[in-house]
């Protein structure tokens, strides 16, 4: 089970990192989501015990660790909010630049720098 968890986390994290290195903003956001889920899965996997659901009249056998579940739930919500925010920023970038591509943004930045440089020389 631990090996399975480790493999899943590794694949998620790897795929997320791969996507994050792309130039397309949306892919970067999706990469971020995958990494956040890798982190959530790590939280789940770090639980100390496994067993039945920990609902109040506790059963005789071992219950699963409730702490990690609470943590993961919180982390999920935070991850969700952050994803929404990232998508929002990506959309704003799209409406101002008409591009969701880092290459285009970088080209624009380079053009601005060159302009600054020219001003500097002319002064």
């Amino acid at each position: 089970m631990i090996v399975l968890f480790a493999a899943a986390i590794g694949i998620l994290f790897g795929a997320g990192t791969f996507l994050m290195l792309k130039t397309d903003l949306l892919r970067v956001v999706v990469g971020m989501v995958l990494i956040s889920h890798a982190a959530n899965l790590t939280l789940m996997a770090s639980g100390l015990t496994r067993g039945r659901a920990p609902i109040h009249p506790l059963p005789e056998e071992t219950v699963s660790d409730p702490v990690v579940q609470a943590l993961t739930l919180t982390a999920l919500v935070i991850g969700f909010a952050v994803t929404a925010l990232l998508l929002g920023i990506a959309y704003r970038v799209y409406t101002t630049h008409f591009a969701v591509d880092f290459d285009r943004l970088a080209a624009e930045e380079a053009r601005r720098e060159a302009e600054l440089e020219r001003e500097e020389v002319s002064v």
Partner: protein
Amino acid sequence: MLAALVWTDGPRELTTGGWPSGVGITLRADALSVVFALLTSGVLLVSLAHEVLDGVRSSRFPALVLFMATGLTGLFLTGDIFNFYVFFELAMIAAYVITGYGGEARQLGAAFVFAVVNLFGSFLFLIAVAAIYHVTGTLEMEEVAARIGDVEPGTVILIAVTVFVAFGVKLGLFPFHFWLPLVYASVRPAIAAILSGALANIGTYGVLRFGADILPRELELGAPALVTLGVVTIVYGALQAMSRRTASEVIAYSSIGQVGYVLIALAIGGPVGYAAAVLYAVVNAVNKALLFLATGLRGWLVGAAFFVGAISVAGIPPAAGFFGKLEVFRAAVEADRVALVALVFVGGALSVVYLLQIYQHDHWRPGSDGASREASPLALRALTVALAALVVGLGLWPEPILAASREAADALLRGAP
């Protein structure tokens, strides 16, 4: 108020919701957290006042700053690792939105890069939290510090490295700095002041709390690596700053360099080293806030304020930066590290060069365009000058801040048996 209580009675604890300790979430205030909380609130207040006086562009801005203040204060006062993460995200989300504030194309691009890089850092931290919980079975900082000694060293080192990388991204240390100049240079001055004067404190506090308080053994083990990184950071930051010409870019690179000193002081360790790290972090935050706020303004009063900030970063008395440098220097001397002492000097000299270059460029040269030569509104200038006066005041009467940093270092050492 809370600061005064901590000062006289020692650490305070509060468990929320009336649950027994271990079930409820603990809030804990010791000298270190109080110093950082006060510092951050002060910087946020000044930056907010600056932006308000300059004319707020959007009604959301003050609310977001308050949101961030909540997150940061909570983060400094929490006694629970997972809560640390939650407050951390709270402050960061506000910061992402604030970075995009202004709505220009460049700022949006910067906000996106900032958000992605820092989220990556946050998730690494979350993974480290999970790992700590797995090996110690608790999330409370004190308990973790007590139990982590029994864990297999290899695992703990892995955790320590993950935590360090997570905070390194936040601080803009040398190998993780790439996002920082882009962001600081493209946002408005008040926001740059918030980011570098308040938000970067997360990184410093995190490294101090996790390094010195929770993982002292691993800190000692990693000290050579920290010193190397610190040295490279200082030299790299200074050289890059010298080659830049716009004021905000120079200061951005300079803030990369300044973090190196904190790292070196931390690596030297012991009461003197920790006190030096805390003091340097405090002084640096105030300096950076002053410099960034002063960059957007014009007029001779602001020139004087910028000059005070510059000599403070360079460590020339009577500015507060002198004592920051002096403490790092003392720590290095006590540890018999001649090379580090020399480096602190060289770093100081380089910062004089690049900051005065900017000073000359911005404040002495006749203006290329008439508009930017006109003095800025009086209220803004007065605010900047007041901050400069604070820097000089701390330099002239350093006892309170010295005592505060010693107290904070003591709190760290008490926590680490």
